[in-house]
């Protein structure tokens, strides 16, 4: 009892790099524990056995061809937004403005459809939509990037604000374009002419985002790992001083990467408006710009791994959504479940980066201390 020096129970130290499979085993373990826990919580909430819950969940996500397509499409869209924010994150530029960048992309595509629909040939219209959506997204990302380079303005907070500017801008144009007047909705744009609607491949409108998702994933993987740009991004992210020392123009890299990030988000906006919703509303991004931050981080900024992390989030979201529909729970339930899973994975990262050594004491002393 009179022990003067306090011996800690354990000692935490930074681990040297551990083998990749080891790290992934820890992460997958965390996901499994979280999934079991969430199934138990859902079991408690519904009065069902956890394994029944898990089965219902699986069925809700993959059960029918239609569900499978929607899951694929949701995953592809989330994956694309996550890929878009990844180069910026690798550079340690915390772009949490993907939500806004996607929305302005949606807005630009919708503007082209409404203002030019039927006036110019359809292929030209779609090309114009693509260009303007990507330009709009890029512009939305460029503004914070410029100030980051000029004055080192905090980009997390700036991009966050840009989201709300985008939301209000969309709200403004919805009222300008609303059909019928006073409804507060734009409705399906060009329903009869289908002008500016992206081509439906193989009779399945959900296929196009999936194809684009696969292509962009491959391109992004190559870009980040095997191109000079990707290398520069990695160096800037690791150490800005080193980058400057070896002659990389940091400002140029930041602006170029953010333009790319924003343009990709704008492209997602095009896919959403031109290919899926055919309308414009302020909820089109639906928080996925924020979710993408977590998806990208969960995958450790690796485009291939990101396929799985976005599928995981979509699985949780749609699975819990299915549970809440069947058992009459509130749909917000899926957000709680997603949150719990994220907490576990975020926490598991600690055990990858740090090692805990329990401090061994002499056997006798240990007994008296317990």
């Amino acid at each position: 009892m009179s022990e003067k020096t306090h011996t800690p129970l354990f000692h935490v130290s930074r681990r040297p790099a551990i083998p990749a499979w080891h790290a992934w085993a820890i992460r997958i373990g965390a996901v499994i524990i979280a999934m079991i826990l969430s199934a138990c919580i859902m079991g408690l909430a519904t009065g069902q056995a956890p394994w029944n819950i898990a089965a219902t969940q699986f069925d809700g996500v993959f059960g029918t061809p239609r569900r499978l397509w929607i899951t694929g499409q949701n995953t592809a869209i989330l994956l694309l937004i996550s890929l878009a924010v990844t180069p910026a994150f690798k550079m340690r530029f915390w772009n949490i403005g993907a939500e806004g960048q996607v929305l302005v992309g949606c807005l630009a595509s919708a503007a082209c459809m409404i203002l030019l629909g039927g006036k110019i040939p359809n292929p030209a219209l779609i090309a114009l939509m693509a260009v303007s959506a990507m330009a709009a997204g890029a512009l939305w990302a460029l503004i914070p990037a410029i100030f980051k380079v000029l004055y080192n303005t905090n980009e997390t907070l700036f991009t966050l604000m840009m989201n709300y500017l985008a939301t209000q801008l969309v709200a403004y144009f919805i009222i300008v374009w609303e059909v019928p007047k006073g409804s507060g909705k734009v409705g399906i744009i060009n329903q009869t002419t289908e002008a500016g609607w992206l081509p439906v491949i193989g009779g399945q409108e959900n296929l196009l985002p999936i194809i684009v998702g696969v292509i962009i994933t491959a391109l992004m993987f190559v870009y980040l790992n095997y191109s000079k740009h990707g290398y520069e991004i990695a160096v800037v992210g690791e150490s800005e001083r080193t980058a400057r020392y070896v002659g990389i123009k940091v400002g140029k890299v930041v602006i170029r990467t953010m333009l790319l990030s924003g343009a990709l988000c704008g492209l997602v906006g095009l896919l959403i408006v031109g290919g899926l919703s055919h309308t414009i509303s302020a909820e089109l991004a639906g928080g996925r710009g924020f979710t993408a931050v977590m998806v990208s981080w969960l995958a450790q900024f690796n485009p291939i791994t990101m396929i799985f992390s976005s599928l995981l989030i979509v699985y949780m979201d749609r699975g819990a959504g299915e549970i809440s529909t069947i058992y009459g729970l509130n749909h917000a339930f899926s957000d709680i479940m997603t949150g719990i899973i994220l907490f576990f994975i975020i926490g598991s990262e600690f055990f990858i980066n740090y090692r805990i050594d329990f401090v061994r004491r002499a056997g006798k002393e240990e007994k008296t201390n317990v």
Partner: protein
Amino acid sequence: MFDFISFIPRAVVQGIPLLFGATGETLTEKSGNLNLGIPGIMYVGAISGVIGAFFYEQSAGGNMNPVLAVVIPLLTCLLGSLLMGLIYCFLTVTLRANQNVTGLAMTTFGVGFGNFFGGSLIKLTGAEVPSIALSATSACFSARLPIAENLGWFGQIFLSYGFLAYVAVAIALVAAFVLRHTRVGLHLRAVGENPATADAAGISISRYKYTATCLGSMVAGLGGLYYVMDYASGVWSNNAFGDRGWLAIALVIFTVWRPNIAVLASILFGGLYILYLYIPTGTDLAVKELYKMLPYIATVIVLIIVSARSKKENQPPASLGLAYFREER
């Protein structure tokens, strides 16, 4: 003529939740934690208060004790937001996780938590409208001084609010004083600016980070409670709180991390938030949506000006967003 006497009280009641949120977030950020979970925490604070009030109203039936009617929701609200603060601290301080990701996950979780339990309570009451009305509890929270009505414009502008509004101002002023003029405040700022140096000076980094972040969460949670019980007259409906949590984070930047400035700035933000109702736009409803951008534009401008002038005392805490690990310097 612009109607200031009706405008100012409305701006104030809009501003009070933001003031709570901003004071809480300022305390948190001063310890070096950028808690993007504030929007979620405010939801959790609000719904925890609603749950407490709901069950008290159910059990008390008709004869409610006004003191208990205030204290129970207050305690449940503080408890709920404290738990959220603890989750955040455990992940970012003890486990040294990425703060941005943790914060966003907290917001997803918190908003979901609020809407889920809100929705469940609504189902429990079997009401036809998608909301719960706790008017009896709300009456206790929003009780005004009886003399306020006799004092004309003075009473309307200064005395027409429930007690939580004055609590918000008091907490902000106390927080500002503690941060600037006390040893504890000095230590806290040291932790946020340069944890390694603070650690060397014998300040317990984890303890300061935990305390500041949990206190900050509790203060922010009160903002949610004020919103439901006073501003919304005890009516909870899902997603009604909206994006006020993010606006509170914006307010922290706008006030360059000073809660005393936040007292007035929150009223300004509240005013900007509802200004569109007062600006005559005729039939052009669309322009009103553009006016709603004003608080965000103001924040962006302040953010740019502050970073461009780069005065030391107006900068974010130097280690904001970074986890501290003693063995890694």
